[in-house]
């Protein structure tokens, strides 16, 4: 026992010595070395700035894009809140936008894709967090049109049960709505494995493709996208709604809100005053 203790003591002493060595090195010779290195680096940086523009461009890119990935902690008095840092944002959000790993559109368009029509963009993005792009941007015609919509998991991509339950926060689901089409009598998701694979391959080989090849690939990827997307009123209506809310698992209370006079009336007002813009998204931004 005594031997074990003395061994332990020795080990601890050794560890402590190493720790002290590191500390002392840090504040003495280590600091000199660091200063020397820093001076060298800053000299290099000045030279690079003088010689190439590339260096400054990377900093701008870093500042603009990667700054948004910072996280901040706020002590709220009763708990610590950690959230993504948003420049100049005053209110606390306490919500993380988990990226949709399955959706292949957002690889290029981002998870906040709507930005053209001033009056619609925020609404579009708000819906895009729980409605798959294809739901509005693909108009299934003829026999392909099934009227079947289901929820898919944002991370796995698999079809899941409805996440909409009484009391859940609206729009904060880990799932999105995707339409189903009928091809050769078979019911299938609009985002078929082939389409997903094609888009992924395009992204992978984008750098090696020529401009002509690129536009050809983009044409194929966007073939199913219709020029005129479904608009607010197609779902927010008392009868004949595009989305079968009941089958998607919405409780009656939520359906009542979605098709309430408040919402529908607001949309009506919108279409009345902003009709031209809504029908031609992005064209009359300057007017």
């Amino acid at each position: 026992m005594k031997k074990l203790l003395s061994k332990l003591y020795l080990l601890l002493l050794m560890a402590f010595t190493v720790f002290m060595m590191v500390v002392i090195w840090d504040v003495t010779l280590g600091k000199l070395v660091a200063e020397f290195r820093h001076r060298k680096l800053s000299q290099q940086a000045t030279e690079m700035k003088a010689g190439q523009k590339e260096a400054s461009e990377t900093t701008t890119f870093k500042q603009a894009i990667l700054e948004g990935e910072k996280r901040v902690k706020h002590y709220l008095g009763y708990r610590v809140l950690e959230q993504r840092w948003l420049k100049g944002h005053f209110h606390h959000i306490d919500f993380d936008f988990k990226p949709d790993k399955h959706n292949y559109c957002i690889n290029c368009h981002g998870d906040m894709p709507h930005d053209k029509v001033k009056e619609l963009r925020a609404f579009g993005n708000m819906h895009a967090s729980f409605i798959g792009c294809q739901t509005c941007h693909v108009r299934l015609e003829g026999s392909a049109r099934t009227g079947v919509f289901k929820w898919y998991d944002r991370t796995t991509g698999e079809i899941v049960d409805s996440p909409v339950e009484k009391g859940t926060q609206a729009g904060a689901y880990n799932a999105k709505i995707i339409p189903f089409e009928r091809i050769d009598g078979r019911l299938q998701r609009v985002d078929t494995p082939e389409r997903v694979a094609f888009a992924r391959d395009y992204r992978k080989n984008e750098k090696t493709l020529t401009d002509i090849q690129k536009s050809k690939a983009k044409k194929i990827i966007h073939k199913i996208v219709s020029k005129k997307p479904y608009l607010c009123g197609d779902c927010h209506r008392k009868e004949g709604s595009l989305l079968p809310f009941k089958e998607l698992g919405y409780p009656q209370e939520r359906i009542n809100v979605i098709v309430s006079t408040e919402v529908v009336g607001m949309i009506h007002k919108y279409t009345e005053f902003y009709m031209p813009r809504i029908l031609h998204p992005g064209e009359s931004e300057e007017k």
Partner: protein
Amino acid sequence: MHLITRNWIQVLLSAGILLFCGAGTASTGNGIMPDTENCLLCHRYPAMGRFDKTGRKRIFYIADELFARSVHGKLRCKNCHIGLDQIPHTNVRKVDCSTKCHIKEPSTGREFSHINMVRKYEASVHGRGAAGGSKPFPEDLPTCKYCHSNRMYNSLDGLWGKSEALSNETLARCVGCHTRKEWARNFYSHFTHRMRRRRTQDEVVKLCTSCHEDQKKMARHGLESISTYKDTFHWVQVKYGVRNAPDCLSCHVPVGYSTHDIRPRTDPVSPIHLSNRVRTCSNQGGVQVCHPGATAQFASGRVHAYGVKAQILAGEKVPDEQEPEMSAVIKRAGMDISEKEVFHYRVLKLLKLFYKLLIGGVISFMLLHQSMHFLRSRRKPHGTGQAFSGKQGGNDQGRCG
């Protein structure tokens, strides 16, 4: 017996208060939030937002529970965001903290506004200058939002340690006369949250350095980056979490001054103006006493180490000297720093180098010596090593026996 009754009363009282607090917390969900305009119909969706022209992510989501617990929780959206009446909100004005927000300020009965703070701030070193004054590079100056977010009220437990009991006890006294419990709780939260520092020392340094460490930005205004602070013992204390360690505010905004009213050191009002420094270092109104015996000579010493300006005057090479922003620093160097200080800088630099080499040398030699000693003691025993081997032999014998 008397004691027992009293205890029972206390238990009942605290249970009652707990119940009432519970009710308060529950009702913060949607109850307190004055969402009479039904803004949350849309703004409760977390992904509501867009990227603006500059590429900044804008989120228009409001976490209603957090908002209700915040210092602005009693306000309506349109009290601050003026021009919301129309959907889409195309005519919304930028939030101006100096507008009146229709809440009655109890001491005067007038409509409340942050105008007093804004006025003070605009006249301060960080402000855009009083009435019509303009400063170069106004985009560098921090706005209200740079330092303030919509802060939450503290919970009842924080102020007196880990327990809510004392807060509840105090609140119980308030409620005796001020019978609207929600009002009393809000009022209590309001003044207790003012009694504590919002940020730790480390966080204060982080906030200030988020601008003041940016060499280019500082150089535009003829200032040095704050890396010189990090050479001080003040910073070392903050870094290692010493309680009450001096951060930026301890000297630049001592007791009795306002963060909104920071002045340059040449301003006679400034706490770091030569005439006020003894007081700042020694005794800040009896509340904070750091260097009680500080003399005028002590206080006139340089707190931040000599930085780029002294380096420039000493004729040394400065990494970013060629940058156009540095011209303002070079211009101000001669104004701010005397020849005596340049001499000090040189001596200090030599001293620093000497001590670094000395300490490093001594420790390295010690380590070398110790490791050689260790190696020697591991060699085959002879001389002094015999005692050790003898002991070992004894042990072996013992084991055999």
